[in-house]
């Protein structure tokens, strides 16, 4: 573009591009011997796990090489439409991570690449990477997509799980990073069209592989999983019958970027299905086909797909029916989600065994043959069938294991231990995500952070040796310029676009005062839009930016980083929430939703018009962590910090470390918990970095991220400690269900923990039938959640009982047997040993005594549909896991929220399971939700990694924008001083003027609200801004719309 064509009203001199001076040749490093480990790490895989682990490490000044087999990063999650149990749009939560990885100065991406060899040892590995040619020069490609438009080839898209098409030259998906095209030589016909049309001359058919070698201190394997093929059960017809598809295919059907643009259609005739069935456990819990384990995620994802199908097609217009064996909605808020699916969305659930699926050749409808719980054979006809296919190790896992020298378990996943959940069998090589076993997104994120912490334990001494400091362009001074606002309105796939008329909002925005540019995007948060925003800022001289998309709580930092890169102060930005506050909550009234969207955009535009640059001063970080709770999670978190050379205070209420682990004499796995606990405690005692405070608890907290002042009540009195970050790992406890099932009245009725202890002592009564009663105090109206561990704990104790006394009758009375993952194998073992499984109704069994002597148990057997009464010698209650009753008090001290059940509520259930919304405070273990030891420990080590992203840096910028006082207006009345909760404002009596201590100020804005002379100002929430926004909010009242 020449200067004459510049569309700016006032001519801005285009910057003269000077030829960059040749960089000075770096001085050849003398043959210096490296002291300590290499300050970089290698990550294999770039799905959510790979991205999270890379980001955690990169944020602590470690250089991270990410190697991805595919031409772009993003993994499975990018293919999903929504995620359970919040129905958050997967791309929306993922895109900020994609962008963060793509732009992080400490992350080097090697896409289209594999590692062929790893030599050396922990601290000093050398990895050989082969980057396959893309036949497109990465330095020249701009991702414009011309090549794809002209490519005549129609190949099958793996991204759309074989449902859509792609060209031979293509990009993995439009939001991927790096946004570079590549030519798939297998489908390329060599016509040369792409080379001709490419404006950047980036096509290079002769490109050769590149084989860089990188030195790294540690390796993290995050290679993910593969989907079990749909034809693993040929009797279900997948591959033969068009209207039978797999769950990943259905995700693409639901997705706005999928083959049907988000419209739910059946493949055979493109009509809207009126009846859809999901068949569970396809390729899971299936020893006959080599996959005996449970894939852990399918029950909840099928529930999600059914709910979303109803949202797409209309709740009344489609019948969604899930055929299952046990409903395993065991995770945080999953059970509530399942209940909502049943009660609100009217999703039908049928417990059964599926025989086969037949196609009616005339209608192409599908007839499902199944056997219901009572043993009757039934048939039902559907328009569409979705197979809930399970997870299996990635295709190349054996090769991966050989290359990296690690052992796999018998199922083909990376071998780990309960107490070392991310350590492989090779020192310095760690694993996270589904390569370690099937798991959901939050568990994956927890492990990803944990793996980062383990790698950092090796690399920490060399932090900063391989990285170069981040350099942002110098901020443009815009204070003298007229506001020039750019507005970017997001369709959010179809999340916003299906309710709000986005193009109409864009047209409206164009006419708002000072708006010089407006456009709409499929996903405003994707990398290509970030580039677009920067481009427009530069091209049009924008000095304010408004994005209208989702909630500022999650996405504002992303866009602020973007405009910072475009030389704008990050506070010259505002986000209008058109999703959480419009399209999701006004689904039924598109006109009103569009009207509201316009008002919100007008308010944001008005807000940024009056925005001024704000500069926040970084403050020094106290490199010490505070860990609350000395159970296994707390210990693991403290060790995770200490191993990186960071100091930690470990605070425990009891007079010894160990928590519930003291009462857990054996595990389902082979490891010995007593020995493990002893080892953990002795490592704590041996560590110079950990100070243990027993019989102590937090009573007061002041300060902010990087600089908290925590007052701990110790037996020696109250002491205040200065810490930079806090990890909450206060645990949970087992319910003692007094008054239920004769618990507390009869010694023969005990809880699972009591039974485990009795089995360990050898005095567990096994001289008559032993009954295990599930869901005691869980999954009931008053306590809706599932306690996650109780089914497996019951199975474990039952097996122990049977092993010690094979002739004892053992009865397992359950509602759904939730032995997810590998715990399914124990379930099978239990059945093989003759443990009798009876499925009971939601009421559960009744336990009473007969003549004050014999214990009698009575239940409704759902399988035989009959009432059963039996004499029982011992009853073991699988009692609920409860949060501590004083959690709300701790929540108040820490200013962090709780769930309705009293567990702590994290910043984001899916992708920020270890963070609180309050900066610098993290959580781990059962205080988050009930969980197993390996999961709690992974979370705890992960929380240490999250805390290390703060503690390992010399400075931090605190949350909140400090207020300031306009001394010209201030009368020194002292009202602000009186009202400030942090004593951050003081009036200089001599000068008669107030001033703000920016270190103490948290930016609540109270001073501005009470100031009678308008001198106290809360940046970004200035009085003029809010007043204007109020006018905009009510605008139609005067003009009428």
């Amino acid at each position, binding site marked *: 573009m020449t200067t004459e064509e510049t569309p700016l009203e006032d001519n801005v001199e285009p910057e003269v591009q000077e030829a960059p001076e040749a960089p000075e040749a770096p001085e050849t490093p003398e043959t210096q011997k490296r002291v300590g480990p290499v300050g970089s790490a290698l990550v294999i895989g770039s799905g959510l796990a790979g991205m999270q682990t890379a980001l955690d490490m990169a944020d602590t000044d470690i250089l991270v090489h990410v190697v991805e087999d595919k031409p772009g990063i993003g993994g499975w999650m990018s293919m999903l439409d929504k995620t359970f149990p*919040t*129905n*958050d749009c997967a791309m929306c939560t993922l895109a900020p991570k994609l962008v963060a990885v793509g732009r992080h100065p400490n992350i080097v991406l090697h896409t289209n690449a594999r590692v062929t060899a790893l030599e050396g040892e922990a601290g000093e590995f050398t990895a050989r990477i082969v980057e396959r040619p893309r036949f497109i020069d990465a330095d020249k490609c701009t991702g414009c997509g011309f090549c794809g438009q002209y490519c005549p080839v129609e190949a099958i898209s793996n991204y759309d799980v074989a449902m859509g098409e792609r060209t031979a030259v293509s990009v993995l998906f439009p939001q991927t990073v790096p946004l570079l095209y590549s030519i798939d030589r297998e489908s390329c016909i060599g016509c040369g069209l792409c080379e001709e049309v490419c404006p950047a001359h980036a096509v290079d058919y002769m490109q050769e592989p590149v084989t860089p070698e990188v030195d790294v201190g540690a390796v993290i394997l995050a290679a993910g999983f593969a989907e079990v093929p749909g034809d693993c059960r040929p009797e279900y017809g997948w591959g033969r019958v068009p209207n039978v598809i797999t769950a990943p295919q259905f995700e693409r059907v639901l997705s706005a970027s999928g083959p049907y643009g988000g419209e739910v259609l059946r493949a055979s005739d493109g009509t809207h299905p009126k009846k859809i069935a999901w068949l569970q456990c396809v390729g899971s819990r299936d020893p006959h086909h080599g996959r005996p384990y449970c894939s852990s995620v399918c029950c909840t994802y099928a529930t999600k797909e059914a709910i979303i199908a109803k*949202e797409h097609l209309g709740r009344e217009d489609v019948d969604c029916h899930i055929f299952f064996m046990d409903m395993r909605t065991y995770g945080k808020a999953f059970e509530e989600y399942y209940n909502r699916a049943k009660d609100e969305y009217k999703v039908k659930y049928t417990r059964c065994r599926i025989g086969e699926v037949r196609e009616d050749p005339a209608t192409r409808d599908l007839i499902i043959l199944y056997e219901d719980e009572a043993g009757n054979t039934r048939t039902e006809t559907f328009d569409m069938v979705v197979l809930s296919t399970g997870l299996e190790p990635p295709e190349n896992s054996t090769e991966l294991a050989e290359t990296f020298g690690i052992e796999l378990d018998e199922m083909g996943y990376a071998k780990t231990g309960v107490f070392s959940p991310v350590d492989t069998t090779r020192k310095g090589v760690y694993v996270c995500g589904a390569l370690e076993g099937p798991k959901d997104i939050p568990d994956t994120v927890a492990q990803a952070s944990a793996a980062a912490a383990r790698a950092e334990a090796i690399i920490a001494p060399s932090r900063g040796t391989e990285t170069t400091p981040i350099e942002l362009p110098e901020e443009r001074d815009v204070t003298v310029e007229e506001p020039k606002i750019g507005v970017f309105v997001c369709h959010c796939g179809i999340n916003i676009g299906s309710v709000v008329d986005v193009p109409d909002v864009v047209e409206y925005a164009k006419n708002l005062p000072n708006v010089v540019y407006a456009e709409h995007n499929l996903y405003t948060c994707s990398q290509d839009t970030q580039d677009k925003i920067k481009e427009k800022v530069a091209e049009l001289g924008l000095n304010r930016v408004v994005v209208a998309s989702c*909630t*500022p*709580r999650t996405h504002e930092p992303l866009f602020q980083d973007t405009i910072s890169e475009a030389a704008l102060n990050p506070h010259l930005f505002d986000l209008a*929430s058109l*999703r*959480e*506050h*419009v399209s*999701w*909550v*006004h*689904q*039924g*009234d598109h006109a*009103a*939703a569009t*009207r*509201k969207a316009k*008002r*919100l955009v007008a*308010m944001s535009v008005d807000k940024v018009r009056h925005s001024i640059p704000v500069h926040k001063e970084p403050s020094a970080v106290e490199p010490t962590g505070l860990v609350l709770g000395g159970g296994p999670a707390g210990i693991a978190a403290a060790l995770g910090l200490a191993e990186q050379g960071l100091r930690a205070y470990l605070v425990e209420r009891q007079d010894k470390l160990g928590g519930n682990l003291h009462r857990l004499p054996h595990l389902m796995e082979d490891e010995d918990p007593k020995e493990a606990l002893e080892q953990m405690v002795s490592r704590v005692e041996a560590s110079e970095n950990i100070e243990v405070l027993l019989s102590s608890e937090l009573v007061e907290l002041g300060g902010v991220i990087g600089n908290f002042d925590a007052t701990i009540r110790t037996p020696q009195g109250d002491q205040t400690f200065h810490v930079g970050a806090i990890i909450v790992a206060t645990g949970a406890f087992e319910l003692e269900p007094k008054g239920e099932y004769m618990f507390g009245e009869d010694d023969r009725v005990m809880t699972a923990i009591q039974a485990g202890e009795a089995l360990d002592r050898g005095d567990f009564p096994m001289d008559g039938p032993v009954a295990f009663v599930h869901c005691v105090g869980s999954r009931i109206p008053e306590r809706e959640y599932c306690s996650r561990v109780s089914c497996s704990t019951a199975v474990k104790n039952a097996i122990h009982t049977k092993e010690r006394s094979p002739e004892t009758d053992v009865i397992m009375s359950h509602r759904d047997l939730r032995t997810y993952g590998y715990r399914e194998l124990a379930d099978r073992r239990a059945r093989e040993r003759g443990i009798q499984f009876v499925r009971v109704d939601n009421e559960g069994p009744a336990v009473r005594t007969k003549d004050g002597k014999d214990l009698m148990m009575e239940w409704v057997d759902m399988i035989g549909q009959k009432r059963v009464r039996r004499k029982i010698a011992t009853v073991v209650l699988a009692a609920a896991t409860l949060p501590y009753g004083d959690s709300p008090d701790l*929540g*108040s001290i820490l*200013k962090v*929220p*709780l*769930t*309705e059940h009293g567990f702590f*509520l994290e910043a984001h259930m899916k992708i920020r399971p270890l963070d609180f*919304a*309050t900066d610098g405070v993290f959580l781990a273990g059962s205080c988050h939700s009930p969980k197993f030891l390996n999961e709690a420990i992974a979370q705890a080590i992960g929380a240490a990694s999250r805390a290390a992203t703060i503690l390992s840096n010399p400075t931090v910028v605190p949350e*909140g924008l400090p207020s300031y006082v306009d001394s010209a207006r201030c009368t020194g009345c002292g009202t602000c001083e009186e*009202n400030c*909760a*942090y004593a951050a404002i003081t009036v200089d009596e001599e000068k008669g003027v107030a001033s703000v201590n920016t270190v103490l100020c*948290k*930016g*609540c*804005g*109270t001073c*501005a*609200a*009470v100031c009678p002379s308008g001198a106290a100002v*809360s940046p970004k*929430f200035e*009085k003029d801004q*809010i*007043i204007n*926004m*109020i*006018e905009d*909010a*009510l605008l139609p*009242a*005067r003009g009428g719309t």
Partner: protein
Amino acid sequence: MADSSKGKKKKTTDDATGGDAPKDWNPRIVGFLCNWCSYTGADLAGVSRLQYTPEFIPIRVMCSGSVDVAYILKALLEGADGVLIGGCHLGDCHYLNGNYKARRRVAVVKEVMEGVGLDPRRLHLEWISASESGKFAKTVSTFDETLRQLGPNPLAKERLL
């Protein structure tokens, strides 16, 4: 509640001037929601797809304690039929005690409203935590119902003050 929506119920305050609502009238609400609890709860209502009136317009503020009296009056003068302030539960304020300040301020403004003949029910303060999406949606809907009973804000037509 069913008949009340017709707006014919006799009002008990001077605010009765707002009684004869136009047929397609829907109460307009400006909501000041604190960043840490109520706005988060409102976000969660979105995630949970809880539906409420599209005439509710949220304004995110850092703390309920930062809601200036001027904002409330401005909204009412500009013709909002109701003003909702959402804060953290007492004792849970992210900024220690901002919500106590909000509570006191709201009480004062209600007195002022009464003094000028505006029904104080047009100003509503509610504690909504980050996890209370249901409470958020219900609060908006109940407030909407109350405002339907009260009819349009008389200031909306005449801008008396």
